């Protein structure tokens, strides 16, 4: 006997629920397509680097958030997963920021 014989009904999701989710998936797909076109189009303007980076990053964050929240169901995930991801995002930010800050902080001394 294995403990996973429990035919646990997919309790969270009934048929109507799935239909709603599918509608959201299609909407998100369209949004992602539009944002892809936007980000490519904006890049054609060859904006000054700081602005170009900010815009590209903003669009990417929006696109990424849509994928994470709706395709990966993060918008309705459990607290434990949020906690792990929050920790991860903090350390990710540290990893991205501190080396470059350290390098350029000392730059004038070299």
């Amino acid at each position, binding site marked *: *006997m294995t403990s996973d014989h429990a035919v646990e009904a997919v309790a969270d999701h009934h048929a109507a629920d799935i239909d709603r989710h599918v509608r959201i998936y299609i909407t998100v797909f369209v949004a992602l397509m539009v944002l892809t076109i936007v980000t490519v189009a904006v890049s054609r303007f060859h904006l000054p680097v700081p602005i170009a980076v900010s815009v590209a990053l903003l669009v990417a964050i929006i696109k990424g958030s849509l994928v994470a929240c709706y395709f990966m169901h993060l918008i309705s995930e459990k607290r*434990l997963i949020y906690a792990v991801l929050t*920790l*991860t995002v903090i*350390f990710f930010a*540290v*990893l991205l920021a*501190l*080396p470059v*800050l*350290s*390098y350029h*902080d*000392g*730059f*004038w*001394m*070299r």
Partner: protein
Amino acid sequence: MSDPVVVGPHPHVAHEVHHEELGFWRKYVFSTDHKVIGIQYAVTGLLFLLFGFSLMMLMRWQLAYPGAPLPLLGRLLGDTRMPGGTMLPEFYNELGAMHGTIMVFLGVVPLAVGGFGNFVLPLQIGAPDMAFPRINMMSYWCLFLGGVTMLGSFFVPGGAAQSGWTSYSPLADIAGTGQTIWLIGMIFLITSSLLGSINFITTTIQLRAKGLTFMRFPIFVWAQFVTSFLLLLAFPPLEAAGVMQLMDRVAGTSFFLPSGLVVSGQPLTNAGGGNPLLWQHLFWFLAHPEVYVLILPGLGIVAEIVANNTRKPLWGYRSIVYSLIFLGFMSFIVWAHHMFMTGMGTAMAAFFQTTTMIISIPSVVILTALILSLWGGSIRFNTPMLFAVGFLPMFGIGGLTGLPLGLNISDIPLHDTYYVIGHFHYVVAPGTIFAMMAGIYYWYPKATGRKMNELLGKIHFAGSLVCMNVIFMPMFFIGLAGVSRRLFDGGAAYAFAQPVAHLNVVSSWGAWILALFQLPFIFNFFWSIKNGEPVGENPWQATTIEWSAPSPPPHGNFVGAPEAYRGPYEYSVPGAAKDFMPQFEA
């Protein structure tokens, strides 16, 4: 007073109805049982600790008697390494780099995390096994492959890695083939740890027994839990860095190679434009949390043994738990204290110095709590307790000597000297290794059904304690005199090192005698399997859940699902019939 001994076949575990008798290979080699995997990890770790120690004993000959031929063994190692029995500098560097790598990644982590974590954790939370038994098995074999790779690197032309366990670029980028093999080995080892950490975290959260809330966890469980997060989130950047260094070496990229490098009079032909500091940042981003990976399981083991052998609850359970969590978090933002001398400006240096000072606080809280736990206890000085109590002042010395290194001003004369070697060895050698020994003597009865011999254990302890101090205490003085680390003659060529040169001889003899004192342990470990005093489930009259399982536990661990009814250290509860109330008894 000992428990009634259970002899004969164990009562059949209630919920296990069918499991086909597995063949030899599935049962003992490719097993998915956490206990078998734990023992595999532990034995592998111990063998590598012995091997890594042997590498150092060889180095200690050169440090004590620079340039002197080594009798017997010197000839055996051949002319490429020890022509005429005298050590070549390249070989010294090979030994140094591999000693560090093996001790950290193939010795301590597999033993502390893979061995103790795998064997004890599921038992201590009342689980039948890990959440992902097959991934658990894979993680061991990844470690095994990594170990084989690292050992294999000794046999390639040019020998094993020689650029320190830290593999700094640009040296590591241009070094011999052994470095490439090292990088491949590291990828296996990192993968093993990542898989293991996923298992530990999921298991701890999901498979804990009924009634076992987080604040009823034994400290060992908390320690492994935090350690797993460190491994999970800190290792991947080193993996990325390893891939980049491999590309520098094999694909000709210049991630870490600056422009204009000249090697042996010849300018390099690579594109340049890379940054050696990038390697250092990515390496230390892992390697600092890694040192907490090295110590945290040991702290957890010491906590268990101290509570058990003082017959008192641990002092400051909550403060220990919060300190462990805070320590784990802080460990991710202190790493550049290893890089104070890289031209960092005052702003970032001040940042890292501050976070480093802050991280010393939780360490002190934990150590203080463990020491205060001794006060008023009915202390039983058995071998596990001797090692656990010995750990405390040793870890204290290690921690305190770290403070001048964490402050960037005082780090200037101390960085990369023998002072650093003394500091970190105090923490890992009479620190972590003592905790490992304590854990082996403590849980050996659970794993085998027999106790190890006490007299041999006490000899092992006493000799090790004295020798460890003889080896490492002089290093602070050698370092304060200004002798750099990784010098193949131990500083003999420098005039300023002459006043402290004799201390190298002292350290070396300490090391060789320490080896002798491990013999009682090795003998004891094997002899006791058949000849140790047989024990029942709870030979130490302990309170945590693993002591409710048979010794050794069968597949599935428990006869009936355990439940936790109270906290983990209910010793000497007023009014109770005996001096301990186990967590698992209603």
